[in-house]
């Protein structure tokens, strides 16, 4: 017999979206029963930090996202290492199975699906071999670490953020690493060619080979069933003892059922459709009157810039969605106005960020769009040679010597009128900043090295739809709120304007 439990709020999933929801719920409703079902065996930890765990820079405590007593402090009844197997919507009941196979039936008034995503499995032969790992969970990292002693060389399939993090960590652990990227450049979903080039340069400088426009066809397996190498489509064979598969993630929608998980666009993964309150669409007839919410990687929320629904499997977005879901579940009506693609990473100490668009879309009207770039005038990375980066409309660029300290021009200008300061890298290193504007509003940002400093100002302008047509060059050179029209700057100085762009509701007007 299944053990029965009942809670006002039930959350499935134990990562960031769940944390966002719990923190919102408990701020609004400190007392009502709240239960959480997660496959994780520990309190919330930070998935982006597993590479640090892998290298041993941090132990488990070092990568906890919240203190170990997080659940108990907030009064959350937890079912750890427990897998939700089925949801019976008419009965408002979650069926789950514990680590020892015990069965639970947990009824809810309000349910949040924060089930996240799972690594995608590319069509490559031999992925079942020993030594093939994905890299998205603590358990992945532990498994890799346990396997590492036999490993000299690693092939990372996928030059995305996860793959590159794994590659960096393994390289730092002294392994020879080759990254195999199907696209002509790494990080192509989040960076423009210039930035990709900087990153490739950084990996190359640390002895990591990156093969672009390359496709892994088959994992070679030795007699013991262990990885021996990777064969590429072009016939090249990369000997290795470990393969990391990092070819993207797929939202976990199975609990919701197909009816709630439409495919948003051709080629995009299915995810759970939600409305602006993060409530699962069409829930009313299916859920028997109880509200069901979804948030995080599993949810298909709106994109702030385009307004279209699209999965946005990034950490901050998951928290925000979880928060909005939690506020609504607790009875505080709040709208999620949309997530913003926002990526920040650093490889071998090189910071790279992007937000919104990173390139002007093909076929865009040059009258509407504008790209402004600012870069160091050192050797441009191979991929960043002129012509490589698309330029549309008016474009300006400002050159700064790499490694130069604040220069004469800046120093002389003082704070006097008409002398904008030219920002420069704080020390030697690449510098790149690019903003994309449409109708005078920022819709895209890419920055590398010291170019990322105060990038949030540009993201804020983007998210808040500030008209930057008169201050765009100041913003490019010196992202700061002083560049904005005084009304905007004044509102931002007092904190009244800036950080609420993602939500609407009574909280916003506070």
């Amino acid at each position, binding site marked *: 017999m299944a053990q029965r439990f009942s809670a006002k709020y039930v959350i499935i999933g134990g990562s960031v979206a769940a944390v966002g929801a719990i923190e919102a719920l408990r701020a609004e409703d400190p007392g009502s029963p709240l239960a959480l079902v997660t496959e994780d065996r520990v309190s919330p930890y930070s998935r982006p930090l597993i590479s640090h765990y892998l290298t041993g820079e941090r132990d488990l405590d070092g990568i906890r996202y919240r203190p170990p007593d997080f659940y108990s402090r907030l009064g959350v009844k937890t079912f750890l290492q427990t897998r939700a197997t089925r949801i019976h919507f008419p009965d408002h009941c979650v069926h789950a199975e514990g680590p020892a196979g015990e069965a639970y039936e947990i009824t809810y008034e309000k349910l949040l699906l924060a089930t996240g995503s799972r690594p995608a499995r590319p069509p490559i032969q031999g992925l079942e071999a020993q030594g093939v790992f994905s890299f998205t969970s603590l358990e992945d990292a532990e498994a890799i670490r346990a396997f590492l002693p036999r490993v000299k060389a690693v092939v990372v399939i996928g030059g995305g953020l996860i793959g590159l993090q794994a590659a960096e960590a393994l390289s730092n652990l002294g392994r020879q690493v080759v990254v195999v990227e199907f696209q002509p450049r790494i990080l192509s979903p989040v960076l423009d060619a210039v930035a990709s080039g900087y990153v490739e340069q950084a990996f190359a400088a640390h002895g990591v080979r990156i093969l672009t426009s390359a496709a892994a066809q088959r994992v070679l397996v030795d007699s013991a069933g262990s990885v021996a190498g990777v064969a590429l489509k072009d016939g090249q064979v990369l000997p290795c003892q470990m393969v990391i598969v990092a070819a993207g993630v797929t939202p976990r929608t199975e609990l919701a059922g197909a009816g709630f998980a439409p495919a948003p666009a051709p080629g995009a993964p299915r995810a759970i459709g939600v409305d602006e309150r993060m409530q699962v669409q069409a829930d009313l007839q299916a859920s028997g009157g109880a509200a069901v919410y979804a948030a995080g990687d599993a949810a298909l929320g709106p994109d702030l810039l385009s307004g279209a629904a699209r999965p946005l499997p990034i950490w901050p977005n998951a928290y925000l969605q979880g928060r909005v879901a939690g506020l609504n579940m607790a009875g505080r009506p709040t709208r999620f106005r949309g997530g913003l693609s926002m990526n920040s990473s650093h490889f071998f100490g090189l910071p790279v960020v992007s937000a919104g668009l990173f390139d002007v879309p093909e076929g865009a009207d040059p009258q509407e769009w504008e790209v402004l770039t600012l870069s160091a005038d050192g050797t441009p990375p191979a991929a960043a040679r002129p012509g490589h980066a698309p330029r549309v409309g008016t474009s300006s660029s400002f050159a700064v010597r790499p490694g130069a300290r604040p220069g004469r021009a800046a120093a*002389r200008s*003082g*704070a006097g009128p008409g002398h904008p300061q030219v920002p420069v890298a704080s020390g030697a290193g690449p510098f790149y900043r690019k903003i994309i504007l449409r109708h005078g509003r920022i819709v895209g940002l890419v920055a590398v090295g010291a170019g990322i400093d105060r990038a949030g100002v540009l993201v804020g302008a983007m998210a808040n739809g500030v008209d930057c047509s008169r201050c765009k060059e100041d913003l490019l050179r010196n992202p700061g709120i002083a560049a904005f029209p005084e009304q905007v700057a004044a509102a931002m100085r007092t904190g009244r304007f800036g950080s609420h762009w993602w939500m609407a509701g009574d909280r916003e007007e506070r």
Partner: protein
Amino acid sequence: MKSFVLNDFIVERDDRRCIRCQVCVRQCSFEVHRYDAELDQVLADEEKCVGCQRCATFCPTHALTIRSSPREFRANANWRPELLMDIKRQAESGGVLLTGMGNDKPFRVYFDHLLLNASQVTNPSLDPLREPMEVRTYLGAKPARLRYENGRITGDMPPQIQLETPIMFSAMSYGAITYNAQLALMQAAQELGTLCNTGEGGWHPDFRKFRDHVTVQVASGRFGIDQDYLNQAAMVEIKIGQGAKPGIGGHLPGEKVTPLVARTRMIPAGTDAISPAPQHDIYSIEDLSALIYALKEATGYEKPVAVKIAAVHNAAAIASGIVRAGADVVVIDGVRGGTGAAPKAIRDHVGIPAELALAAVDRRLRQEGIRNRASLVVAGGIRCSADVFKALALGADAVYIGTAALVAMGCTLCQQCYTGKCAWGITSARPDLAKRLNPDIATRRVVNLVRAWTREIKEMLGGMGINAVESLRENRLQLRAVGLEDWEMDVLGVKGAGM
């Protein structure tokens, strides 16, 4: 033309202390300092340094010392370096030398040659901390006598201004000083219970709320004057002359007539604001009387009307005429009075010291039996509480301070007011410089100064065994001279020390 003018100042930077924070670079409004990235050093263009000490004051590591340049030529007691430099400047420009602030030439400062009395044995000194010390002062004409009728004291009492300290702020117009500086003076006047003078630049609408503490000026330019201007103020002052530049008018160039200045002065923005040398409706003493009574008519005889003149040779006779012309207050502005801009030749060579003029005027009015018919205010070079004290003993009812108030705010007398680049935000024309003066801090500083002086005045009063300032006024017996000639002591009406 190659300039032959040598630097006035030397910038010494202790490189061991310089952290390259560039605060000096940003603080120097004369663009002396600059950071050189290649050298990673802050460099100085000393030619431009005016010695305002802004950078040295703000350097967080005290790495800066600004020293006078020795500019040493073959010694010549007659042709001093300053004169040589002036000649070279004029040879290169053909222009009149302009300067700011008051006369800096070493004419005798009579205050420094007067010493004060104190009680010993025959009368007690009073403790000013614990016992009452009254410095309240009333400005305005007093009747010769009062009458007593049925329990009421009556008299034909002209309007009076009550001051809680005999120290007022002299005329400095909005335009000559910044909005913040004038705001600070008005706030300070309100807090201190004294008066601030608008100068002749009009009266900014924002400042009307200080009306009970504002003297408005009617000068040759007649800027911003209307019925409200006159009637909302506590006192009206006709400015005939100014100690720093007797006989000279003024000129605010059109580019400084910003929309706000224009609104304050009630003239179109961008037009020159000219203050003629004379008031063209006053070519004689009876014309002054006509203006005085015109202002009294305009204000319903409810405001004292002051007349301010520069201290000149026959000040006593002029003052007598002013009193007889109907003025309620006579202001004597001495040769050391400050200014925002004046031809150097005028500033340094026209007029007489305030002390002598004051003593002569007070004595003359008393001899003529009309001293009660006007209060006497002295201005021009009041530098400390002792100066105030001595001025009162010489016969003043109150004093004006201008320079001292500005110094309290930060002024270092670099004399560059007329350039509009005041690094201290006091006379600056540039808005980014003007906001350097936080009006609330400036108010506090000025209030502190006047409070401190007032306390010191009370200390000195107490030392004399006097507990009300009216017992000091004209009490020249409390003064003794050291190092003065007989004629000077005669003018001042004081004996030599030991007599």
